């Protein structure tokens, strides 16, 4: 059998496995097309700008999931950490000034990440359980903090609002932050030693050990970095939402995992990358719009996202076993 006679489905799955970006972008375009058919006229430059604007915080939070998933982990505390940074920043800004508040907010995020890193790297707790626990504690801290600080009022810096909601020439300003952010990650994941090690550790941790890698260093740095990224996400998100709340980014936890998984990053580690995640975040944003148009209740959305994660993961298992 020559290569041209390979069944279409198998060729498609191989394409999907080797270069997930192409089918993903096709899927995105197809979804946009369906949306346009469902409600003619909805797709406009303004709508596209809006979609990107909403997708940016999701894509940034999904960076936490992508990087941790490359090593076979996950960071379920990311949403809470983002919320904390945003809330702490907004409440401290009137007291200390904006730059100091931003630094303290991000410091909280790094601290939470380091706690995750400690549990996962040193105590070898499963990342899922550890990050869930850290999220719970962090949320408790936030509640305590809120009781003592709420009276001072909040400030949301104009810069963040400009970044979160503003547009210049119809293009969302958030891209000013997001494009360098994404470029740095996409460059870093392939072209730095640390990035390489993420893939290596996720692909075969015992093998990296034999090559002289001390994987705990990788895990610790990774989860600390993940905390920092979650904090940055919180800052962008609060510029978009404009009201500090205690559940600001919590609703993004699940979609951020789904965005990374849909974007072709294997939840078992070693495969994928941030490029796919960005498309995945756009796909999920469009999908959400579609579900809203269909008046799909929130519960159905949760079910759908859960099934997507499971189905995509099972598919990747089949793909990797075949080869």
């Amino acid at each position, binding site marked *: 059998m020559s290569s041209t006679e390979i069944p279409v489905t198998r060729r498609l799955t191989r394409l999907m496995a080797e270069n997930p970006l192409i089918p993903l972008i096709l899927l995105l375009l197809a979804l946009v097309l369906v949306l346009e058919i469902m409600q003619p006229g909805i797709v406009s430059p303004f709508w596209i700008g809006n979609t990107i604007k909403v997708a940016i915080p999701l894509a940034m939070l999904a960076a936490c999931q992508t990087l941790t998933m490359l090593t076979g982990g996950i960071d379920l505390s990311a949403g809470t950490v983002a919320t904390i940074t945003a809330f702490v920043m907004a409440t401290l800004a009137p007291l200390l000034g904006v730059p100091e508040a931003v630094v303290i907010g991000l410091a909280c995020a790094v601290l939470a990440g380091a706690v995750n890193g400690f549990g996962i790297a040193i105590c070898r707790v*499963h990342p899922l*359980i550890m990050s869930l626990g850290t999220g719970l504690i962090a949320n*408790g801290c936030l509640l305590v903090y809120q009781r003592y600080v709420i009276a001072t009022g909040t400030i949301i810096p104009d810069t963040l609002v400009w970044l979160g909601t503003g547009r210049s020439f119809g293009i969302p300003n958030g891209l000013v932050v997001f494009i360098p952010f994404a470029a740095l990650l996409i460059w870093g994941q392939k072209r730095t030693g640390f990035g390489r090690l993420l893939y290596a550790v996720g692909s075969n941790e015992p093998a990296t050990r034999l090559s002289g890698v001390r994987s705990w260093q990788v895990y610790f740095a990774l989860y600390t970095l993940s905390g920092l990224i979650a904090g940055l996400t919180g800052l962008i998100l609060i510029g978009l939402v404009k009201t500090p709340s205690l559940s600001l980014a919590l609703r993004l936890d699940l979609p951020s995992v789904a965005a990374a998984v849909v974007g072709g990053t294997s939840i078992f580690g070693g495969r994928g990358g941030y490029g796919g995640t960005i498309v995945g975040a756009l796909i999920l944003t469009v999908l959400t719009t579609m579900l809203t148009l269909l008046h799909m209740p929130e*519960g159905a959305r*949760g079910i759908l996202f859960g099934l997507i994660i*499971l189905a995509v993961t099972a598919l990747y*298992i089949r793909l990797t076993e075949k080869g």
Partner: protein
Amino acid sequence: MTRILSKNIWTLGLAALLAVLLVITKLIQPDFGVSGLDSLGRAALPFALASLGMAVVVIAGGIDLSLASMMAVTSVTAATLMDGASDGQSVLVVLFVLLLGAAMGTVNGTLVVVSRVPDIVVTLSMLFVWQGTALLILNAPGGAAAPWLRALSVGGVTLPFVPEALTVWLPKSVVFLFVCLAVVWLPIRRSKLGLMFYAVGSDALAAFRSGVPVGRTKIAAYAVTGLFAALGGIAVTMSTGIGEPIPGPYLLAAVAAVVLGGVVLGGGRGGLIGPVLAVFILRLVRMDLTLMSVDPNVTTIVEGSIMVVVVMFGGVVAMRGRRT
């Protein structure tokens, strides 16, 4: 005798710790008594049932992250169906909900075995699926619980020929818990199925070679977990009187109680009494902090930290065990 002692040393230690904590509680709050025990029992009930469910699946070498979501589904199902139902109907509702829990657990287990995706990923996905299902059934807390069901967990038991002054010290909620434990777990533990749970969790290959159907055993373990989750969901509805579609903090609490209770993450070791004692210890710590008028949110942090430290400790122990 010494063997039985050494085998159960962990459980006995937990029991001693619980006793010490009870004494401390009495010292902090001199009028801690019947009503205190009663409220402790009621607060602990859903946590204890969740921990029982988690313990079963962990013993069999798995983990079920969708536990709290399954509790939410069963809680709202029970509350919705019981709203305006007669006593007779509500008994049927309870039976239906228990079946529903076992069915959800079976779905989880089947997906784990058939898809070959690791337990932790499958049940994470199912966490979202069941959570969504709960929201579809009931969008906001609501529904009702049958009065007889509510009465099941309030106050002390009444026993014939035993003076009430004694029976008030035994909260109905605790009795309910141990009845659940005895009815669900004892027959399993005594049968070969219980052995198979331990065997699969301890060493799946050796179990396979000893003739244990590994896949089916795993599914059965998940089904039992689902059943306990259903009991937990009913307990939530029982104590609040309504259905709660947002999953409570039961997942991590259950994992922590399981680890603290002497069940090894990874499977094969531990029992169900340990986790129950652990739940009471964790609840009592929380109660003491509240009695010392610590901010309830600080209490949450302390509680969360205890859980995380316990899980981290469990991780270190498991790692050492693997090395030797």
